[in-house]
């Protein structure tokens, strides 16, 4: 198994990049003086160079330090939201697809209705009405609107999988429905789940960055999106302070690239193992 994973260069590259970015964030205290990320800790509006490798912003934050602290936060949101959204969607999809009948009708209708509501509108509504937004709350909010597509997709696959002869054979072995779902159906969903996970995570990150850029993010925490917000707020573009918004953009781009590579690599890996038919 490990060998197969290592053979997929895309997958390895993506994982390596993601790991690097995560590590950079975790190792922040050893790489830079994190106190420099506080407001007013350095001379403001300095361009890159000298003591501040990426310069400073209007509020006197060292951009590099801020970046390194913001990275793990954004990653956390994305991972949490992605996991919760996918997990919830998968569970509901399994229930709907396997048992059909009333549970299916209920879940399907819920998902279809929820899908038609513009997510941004709901997110904004929630964010506006919450007293103080936190990273965890953001993650849950975003996840709450990310489960529908996985639910539908998983349901469709389960509907198809349950008709396969190997499921019948499992029944003939005397295996009950719960074990059937776990041992026969779920392993076949892994390719979809693996591929969707990366998409779910990046989708969640985009949604949160969008909210944060609008100013609805956690004001007291540092995330990549909040860096955008502060850059906008401080008129970075007008003032030509490119070092304020370019680093977070590059960081986000790198994260998405890594996720894309992981997704593509996992997809190839799963398909190689799952070759079916003559």
């Amino acid at each position, binding site marked *: 198994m490990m060998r197969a994973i290592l053979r997929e260069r895309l997958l390895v590259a993506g994982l390596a990049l993601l790991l690097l970015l995560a590590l950079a964030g975790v190792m922040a205290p050893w790489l830079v003086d994190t106190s420099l990320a506080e407001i007013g800790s350095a001379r403001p509006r300095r361009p890159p160079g000298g003591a501040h490798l990426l310069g400073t912003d209007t509020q006197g934050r060292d951009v590099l330090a801020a970046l390194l602290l913001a990275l793990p936060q954004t990653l956390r949101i994305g991972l949490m939201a992605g996991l919760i959204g996918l997990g919830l969607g998968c569970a509901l999809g399994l229930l709907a697809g396997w048992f059909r009948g009333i549970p299916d009708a209920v879940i399907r209708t819920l998902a279809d209705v929820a899908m038609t509501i513009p997510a941004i509108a709901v997110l904004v509504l929630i964010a506006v009405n919450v007293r103080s937004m936190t990273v965890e709350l953001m993650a849950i909010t975003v996840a709450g609107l990310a489960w529908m597509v996985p639910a539908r997709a998983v349901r469709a696959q389960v509907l198809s999988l349950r008709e396969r002869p*190997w499921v019948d054979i499992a029944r003939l072995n005397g295996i009950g429905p719960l074990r059937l779902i776990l041992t026969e159906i779920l392993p076949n969903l892994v390719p979809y789940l693996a591929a969707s996970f990366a998409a779910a995570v990046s989708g969640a990150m985009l949604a949160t960055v969008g909210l944060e850029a609008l100013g609805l993010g956690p004001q007291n925490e540092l995330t990549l999106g909040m860096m955008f917000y502060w850059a906008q707020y401080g008129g970075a573009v007008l003032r030509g302070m490119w070092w304020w918004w370019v680093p977070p953009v590059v960081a986000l781009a790198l994260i998405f690239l890594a996720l894309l590579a992981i997704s593509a690599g996992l997809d190839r890996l799963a398909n190689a193992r799952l070759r079916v038919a003559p």
Partner: protein
Amino acid sequence: MPLELRDAEVAFGGGLLGRRRNLALAGVSLALDPGPAETLAIVGESGSGKTTLTRLLLGLLRPTSGRVLWRGRDLHALRGQDLAEYRRGVQAIFQDPFGAFNPVYRVDRMLILPARRFGLAANEEEARALAEQALGAVGLRAAETLGRYPHQLSGGQRQRLMVARAMMLRPRVIVADEPVSMVDASLRATILGALHLLRQGGGVSLVYVTHDLTTAWQLADRVMVMRHGRVVEQGDVEQVIGRPAHPYTRALLDAVPPAMPDPDWLDREDAA
């Protein structure tokens, strides 16, 4: 009476006013001999309902009307221990060797899992030994088969694995749907011979579903001919195939190529 069908009917569809009802099976009754093991051949073409019939017998499908009985009791009313007994007593060989294997697992599981579940083996080693023995009976080499994934084996090998599984389990009844269709001619006779032996010596009844009349003749004691979901003729094999009464049975017989080359066979059509 180990396995029985009484007036079983299976209808699909329904439409808004029940107009588009499609009858896959209409009023079919059959009963396996309670005494010595017997082989019942179910002969028909695709669309005849024979696959639906097998699914009824295997408890994978509920009839829309009529009953399926195991040991005199309604199959779908069985629970717990009784249900487990049924599962132990009735096994299958499916026609489609491609779909029968879950692609994420190695093919060993096809043999080892049921061996453990039905208590034929106490542990992995015993199960493996049983599996290897079963493979030998169908002409498969354990070294070339076990440890592989389904896509690494040919259709014929997979089908033989399914046969090996059924033979290893020695149930009371084997429902075999075209068990040798993907297997080469030379091996076909060997496998059918092994199934025949199970009947003789092992007391295993066989429901043999096929469109091949010659193997039905060779293997079966009784024959049921099906067409469009209905039974058109049934009885002892010598009577149904030897002296067919129904025109459809005659048409099926006529479509079998003769044992010795007959250049006129193609152009000749039996008045059906």
